[in-house]
């Protein structure tokens, strides 16, 4: 099943939309294509317990500030996860668009920790290398992760630079003006923030590792 991608997301690729329109999308799902344990697997992860008790009321989608940019509304993600539509879920933009504002979590009448489920799905996606390539969000997450792993603290200037280098260098030019403004106001530092007990930190994170996910 092809993944329809909202054109808003790839605004930087005008041709993309047209191609998508030409494609014929196959809309049938054979049970054999599903991963039937997927739902339970996700539910077993932290704060996933109530996932299976979803009644598909759509409160999450309605309260989500980003739902209108998602390829599948949060409700659909839950349904698909439960039914084992693993590929669609892990390939979806939805999980990456979640800005973790917890609106859904607070309002869900079944008290499903939707935001935490989204985190679980993000991790799953990275683990399986499923997430859409060149989509900046996972890259940002990864860069952030590396930076903190290295210095123990994050320095926004460097984070952004490395982000744009890895996604869309042209964007950096666009941002440079803003960057400069911030800089003159002393809001962007060139010197990196570092933790003194870095070795300590690293050993903690090393110990934690069940095989590095990057």
């Amino acid at each position, binding site marked *: 099943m092809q993944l329809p991608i909202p054109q808003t997301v790839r605004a930087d690729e005008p041709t993309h939309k047209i191609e998508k329109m030409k494609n014929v999308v196959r809309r049938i799902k054979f049970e054999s294509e599903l991963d039937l344990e997927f739902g339970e697997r996700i539910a077993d992860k932290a704060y996933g317990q109530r996932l299976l008790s979803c009644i598909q009321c759509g*409160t999450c989608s*309605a309260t989500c500030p980003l739902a209108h940019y998602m390829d599948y*509304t949060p409700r659909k993600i839950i349904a698909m996860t439960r039914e084992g539509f693993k590929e669609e879920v892990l390939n979806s933009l939805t999980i990456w668009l979640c800005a973790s504002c917890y609106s859904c979590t607070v309002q869900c009448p079944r008290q499903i920790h939707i935001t935490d489920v989204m985190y679980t799905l993000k991790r799953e996606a990275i683990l399986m290398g499923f997430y859409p390539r060149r989509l900046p969000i996972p890259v940002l997450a990864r860069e952030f992760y590396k930076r903190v792993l290295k210095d123990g603290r994050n320095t926004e200037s460097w984070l952004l630079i490395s982000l744009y280098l890895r996604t869309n260098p042209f964007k950096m030019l666009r941002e440079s003006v803003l960057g400069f403004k911030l800089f003159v106001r002393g809001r962007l530092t060139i010197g990196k923030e570092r933790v003194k007990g870095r070795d300590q930190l690293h050993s903690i994170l090393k110990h934690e590792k069940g095989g590095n996910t990057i």
Partner: protein
Amino acid sequence: MHGNGDNGSIRIGFYICHCGHNIGSVVDVHAVAEYVKTLHGVVLSQEYKYMCSDPGQELIQKDIQEQSLNRIIVASCSPLLHEHTFRSAVEKGGLNPYFFQMVNIRENVSWVHTDMQAATQKAKDLSRAAVQRVFHHKALETKHVKIHPDVLIVGGGIAGIHAALTLANAGKKVYLVEKDPTIGGHMAMFDKTFPTLDCAACILTPKMSQVKNHPNITLWTYSEVVKVEGYVGSYTIGVRRKPRYVNEALCVGCMDCIDKCIYKEGKTPDEFNAGLNKRKPIYIPFPQATPQLVVIDPKTCIEFKSGHCKKTCVDACDRKAIDFKQKEEIKEISVGTIILATGYQIFDAKRIPFYGYGKYPNVYTSLEVERLVNASGPTGGELILRDGQHPKTVGIIHCVGSRDKNTNRWCSRTCCMYSLKLAHLLKEHTDAEVYNFYIDIRAAGKSYEEFYDKLLDENVHFVRGRVAEVTDWAVRPSEEGKLIIRAEDTLIGVVRRVPVDMVVLAVGMEPQADAQDIRRLFNISCSTEGFFLERHPKLAPVDTFTDGIFIAGACQGPKDIPDSVAQAGAAAAQALTLIDTGEIELEPNTVFVVQEECSGCRTCLTMCPYNAISRDEVKQKAIINEALCKGCGTCVAACPSGALKQNLFEDEMIFSEIDGLLTMEQEACC
């Protein structure tokens, strides 16, 4: 006195029930029967498909006579279900019924375990315990108590009214106690009723006046039960009659006093109109209020607040019915049975701030809308919003305070249908566009689905999605000055923003605020949600765990009118059965004193909550008043000399049970 086995040897008959597959599929019934055969005292041990069936019971009777058994044990379901059945079987067999012991291997074993070996082992242990227990059983006399023929009914809603009339028509004397100034309950507030759309008042008010005029019904409105003593058959009830400050005997409900009240306009929110308009301190709840009596509300009446009122109302009343000196009185009555029909309260919509109730004037609860569309309502049935507008678009939000773990988990059952009804009425009154936002439409009643069809044909919008928020935040010019409902249309899969003029919140049904107090007062149980708990969800839906007390209507759980009426009828029938039997058997599990062992230490006296124990100052011994003893056995556990014993639960019996449960047997697997 039936034959008893005290003389001579103990001859035990053991029967184990398959209960179809219910027990047989998890417990190796045969193995248990075989094992019990080997136990001391057991003369006969056999299995049977359905012990509770007639042949099953006859089996017991036959064996008692032919094999001169003097102890009977049946291992089957819970004693709460069939103990009585088997006891009477034993009695028919010519043996004292209290030589019988029941072993629960269904609710406590086969239905809760999966591992056959473990379950069978448990069944064996329990059976062995019973075998050892019955050695100590004694012949006992069953206690009988007379049933007082009068009935108390609490709550004057449709359920209470129906139960009262049913019993009264059967010639029983009924006391109907209602806490409000009038009977009628919620139903009196409704406009039309689904699915037939006949007007609530038209079908209710005749019944109300019947109640008022029925010779067998004593109607006490504006009253509350404050005391409940005694037990099934003879309850003593205390009823507090709040002062109306109007003499019931004199007032004819002409309402002149109300017109003459120095308040030209009402000041306090009108309860009956869901607070949509104001009423005066002296008022009558609504035109057809029953009884037709005015009430004075001391909280708002000037005379009560300052004492310097012109008392124009007094002058207005030519029958001199108004009496500011009136005091509350406590009535004491004796009844044999009680029916609780205390109803429900609606969910407080303020608890869900997302829907803006109390913040945006044009957000209404369903109950308010019932009054708003009602011809005798505050607007005379014309649909004028709080801001004076006539709505062109209306959004009805389902499941407000239902199916929501953050508020109430349960489905309130009535909201779907009354929302459809209101949708119809609103369209009828205003020809507005009506949107229903629902999670599921539950129209599972007689001709309910057909009503749903009708609404679909009337082109009412149905959006399947729970509303996340009602807000005045407009992002499009078309939304300016409107209330915007945000929900996902889950069938289409997109989020929708629907601007409307009026929002109706289909609020759910909750237990009454004082349900817990009532429960304690009448000594019955509540379910987890706080509704009164029935004795059995299917087979005893109107009985409670307290004999002689029955429940009807929404106090037992959310219910619509037909169901409430049906249940009220059932409760009345249950009460009638008791009354017409004239007496009821009580467990003879009372306490007695072994005189020679009592040291007269007084320990037990403080234990008994019923003052059933006194002390013979001459003999210096404790005396038990059998009539007062309820058989809890708390005193028995406290008696230091072991002089107190409880029938059916003597120490020996329980010790032998413990012993039986714990003695290892050879072929045991663990």
